[in-house]
């Protein structure tokens, strides 16, 4: 299986959404703020379901939030 890294644009999307806080996003998708912090820092890869929920919270397609780059 090829190895890669999942990157995300959550910080920019939060900025675009009127400086939505990590806590606000966490509450919208039903996880802890620490989980959002870990995802944003690319230290934790969310499940597909949570990834879709995050994209829905910003009202954008999944590919606009997360991307995968082969290393």
């Amino acid at each position, binding site marked *: 299986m090829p190895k890669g890294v999942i990157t995300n644009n959550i910080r920019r999307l939060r900025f675009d959404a009127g400086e939505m806080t990590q806590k606000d996003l966490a509450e919208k998708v*039903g996880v*802890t703020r*620490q989980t959002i912090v870990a995802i944003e820092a690319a230290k934790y890869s969310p499940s597909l379901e949570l990834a879709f929920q995050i994209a829905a919270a910003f009202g954008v397609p999944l590919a606009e939030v997360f991307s995968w780059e082969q290393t």
Partner: protein
Amino acid sequence: MSWLERSTLAQALRAAVIYAVFLAYMQGMTADGRLTGDAGLSHLGLAILILIGATIIIGIILQILAMILAAIYGEEAMADLTDERDKAIERRAIEVGFTVVGCGFLAMALALWQGWGAIWAINLLLGGFVASDILVNLLKFRSYWRGA
């Protein structure tokens, strides 16, 4: 340090302290000669039951205290929420914990094979469980600490 970090660290300390007390009690029983023969196994069984009960009760008390402190100091309202990342952290730590329990079981079998006696063998198995409990909580603490 977040609520979860403090909680997992407290649980690891709880296991270490209770087991240290248990070992001191075992040493006393050995010195008194209460751990010999069939009666010795009976005394050990009772001591292990007390150890398990104390571990559960103190664990619950610590959890309640942590939640009260979190409420008093106005920490995250979602402190009691467990999400998929918590489950992933728990799963990774438990995988390592099972390995440690397995090592304890192996040590027990080796001790019996070498004729160490049932009391030593049981203690090795118990030690594996306690080491697993401590390690699981320390690994969880490390994951929360690093934000992984």
